[in-house]
């Protein structure tokens, strides 16, 4: 049965791709699952492929790519779900793509980055060898709901895993640590010891103890609510770290140091030597839209996907540190972005003041313009048409400068489409 589904799925994707109907990255899996709900589980059961599942609000794609690059550097064959295909049907489609016509998966590793809401569904069916939990921040509240409800669902599903799963968890996020400690899994924690902030920034989410509801104390904060925390009442605190630094970080930004640590810790647990890891990281190319560089007519562009308050704040800090002069912000409110744009009021726009020119566009251009106006910033221009915004932005960027673009998810795809003529490279 499953062999037929694989075969059918492969023909199906071939058709979709040859007719240029899109990437065809979720339909084959969708069809397979509607015929056999246990399709993915059964296919994986008959293979020796090691399963790695990665979840978190921010950093999934970059962490997956880091791990994939390191594993491939050691000669392993890695199967990785395509961008955006992070629901159950995405997993099934990835498996169809990765198996031969006999339904056999000849890969050493499967890396699956999971949507937050999908993680419990996936874990119900598939027991990974490694589960990596990165962080939980407020994100698309109209779609995902509030983070406590996601944390609770994760907690319950992770509890059901048995000891064959190794957990790699971000110790600096109290909600992630709580999930790890409620499980019985062997857990390896990573965290950063470099925070200089002592007061809790606006919009930080987990600042009350997940165990007893008292206010947490922070010795320092790296960003949002990630830092060295302790509950003075119930003594719940950041656990001992297995890894808190590495010799090489391939991408700028504190958030990418977290992603790197997660990937390095995973690699160390898979007996990969630090020198080998370093070598792979040196040649690392960012995932699409995540600090991706594009050059057009000698003009430099760099895309920083910014989809929620934390990712926007960290992108803005990172480009400020890179000496940014020209910035285009693109705010959309389509389903993959979240329909509610209230979150733009939770971001700290003060770094815009030091920029030379700010261009604004997207479906909700006037909402982001209002936000900018209320920051007392005057040097911005609005464009209803994204193409015009990009053209104008490039015209105003000289050859030795970079046009930085901070788009929401669908805006990032749209921007890339305009810049490269294709939807996803």
């Amino acid at each position: 049965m499953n062999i037929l589904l694989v075969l059918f799925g492969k023909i199906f994707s071939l058709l979709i791709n040859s007719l240029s109907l899109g990437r065809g990255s979720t339909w084959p899996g969708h069809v397979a699952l509607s015929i056999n709900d246990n399709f993915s589980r059964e296919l994986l059961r008959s293979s020796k492929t090691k399963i790695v599942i990665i979840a978190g609000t921010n950093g999934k794609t970059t962490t997956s790519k880091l791990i994939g690059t390191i594993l491939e550097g050691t000669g392993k064959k890695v199967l990785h779900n395509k961008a955006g295909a992070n629901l159950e049907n995405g997993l099934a489609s990835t498996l169809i793509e990765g198996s031969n016509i006999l339904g056999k998966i000849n890969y050493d590793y499967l890396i699956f980055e999971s949507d937050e809401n999908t993680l419990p569904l996936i874990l119900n069916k598939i027991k990974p060898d490694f589960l990596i939990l990165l962080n939980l921040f407020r994100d698309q509240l109209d779609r995902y709901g509030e983070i406590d409800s996601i944390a609770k669902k994760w907690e319950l599903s992770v509890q059901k895993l048995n000891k064959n799963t190794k957990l790699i968890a971000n110790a600096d996020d109290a909600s992630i640590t709580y999930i790890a400690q409620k499980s019985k899994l062997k857990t390896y924690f990573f965290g950063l010891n470099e925070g200089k902030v002592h007061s809790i920034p606006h919009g930080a989410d987990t600042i009350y103890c997940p165990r007893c509801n008292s206010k947490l104390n922070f010795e320092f904060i790296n960003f949002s609510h990630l830092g060295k925390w302790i509950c003075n009442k119930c003594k719940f605190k950041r656990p001992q770290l297995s890894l808190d630094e590495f010799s090489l970080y391939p991408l700028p930004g504190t958030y990418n140091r977290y992603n790197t640590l997660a990937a390095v810790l995973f690699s160390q647990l898979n007996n990969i030597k630090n020198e080998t890891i370093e070598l792979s990281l040196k040649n690392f190319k960012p995932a699409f839209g995540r600090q991706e560089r594009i050059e057009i007519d000698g003009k430099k562009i760099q895309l920083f996907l910014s989809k929620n308050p934390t990712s926007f704040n960290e992108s803005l800090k990172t480009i400020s540190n890179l000496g940014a002069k020209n910035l285009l912000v693109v705010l959309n409110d389509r389903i993959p972005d979240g329909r509610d744009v209230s979150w733009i009021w939770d971001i700290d726009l003060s770094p815009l003041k030091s920029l030379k020119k700010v261009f604004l566009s997207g479906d909700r251009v006037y909402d982001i313009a209002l936000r900018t106006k209320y920051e007392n910033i005057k040097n911005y221009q609005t464009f209803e048409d994204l193409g015009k915004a990009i053209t104008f932005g490039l015209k105003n960027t000289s050859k030795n400068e970079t046009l930085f673009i901070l788009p929401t998810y669908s805006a990032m795809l749209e921007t890339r489409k305009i810049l490269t003529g294709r939807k996803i490279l």
Partner: protein
Amino acid sequence: MILNIGWLYPELMNVYGDIGNIIVLSKRCEWRGIKANIKYLDIGFAVNELEDCDILFMGGAQDRQQKIVASDLKVKAKKLKEKIEAGTPGLYVCGAYQFLGKFYKEADGSKVNGLGIFDLYTENPGENLKRLIGNVVIESKFGKLIGFENHGGRTFLGKSVEHLGKVLKGFGNNGEDSFEGAVYKNSVGSYFHGPILPKNPKLADFLIKIALDRKYGSRTRLSPIENSLEEKARKAIAKRMNVEYNKS
């Protein structure tokens, strides 16, 4: 002139960009030469801090946070009620709006008492009924109000509060009776995120004007602020929602 803006539980009741309402109130004061002093009233604040607040604001939160706030607010309810009854202008969004009502009825039928300041109650319809989510436009005495709603609870108004407006597009208090929000004396309750004030400057200016009138005795005249960007943002949503829109 100085206005003290009391922000109730900024650390916990801030999930849906609620800080935007505080930013708008303070900037619209500042741009008119009125000093806005924001008082951050977090868990454990002294009840007499409420005394000199000229405008009050409280936003929404998750269930766990709301429980923490509820126990803190209980001991301050009397003073808050006095302030609201005396006519202190205020804005209470989503969770805060529900809090000020008489009770919140859980899906299992159990009741959680509210502060009983607004004559209204809220019911949780249980998992089987959908949350009310989406852009929303209402007709109110402040003209059209435009925002975004995202709430599971259904709120029903009693006789001694007025509704804030009638729903043109969207759901409002409960998705049934076409009312949205509540007005009691100078206090406004609403489900609007967005947040509500940036795209609805008339409502923001109403709160500021009442606060000035009460504090400085006479009928103040607010100097106008250029609102063309607000108009564009409002018009874009109205157009998308197929609501006829003339300049507000």
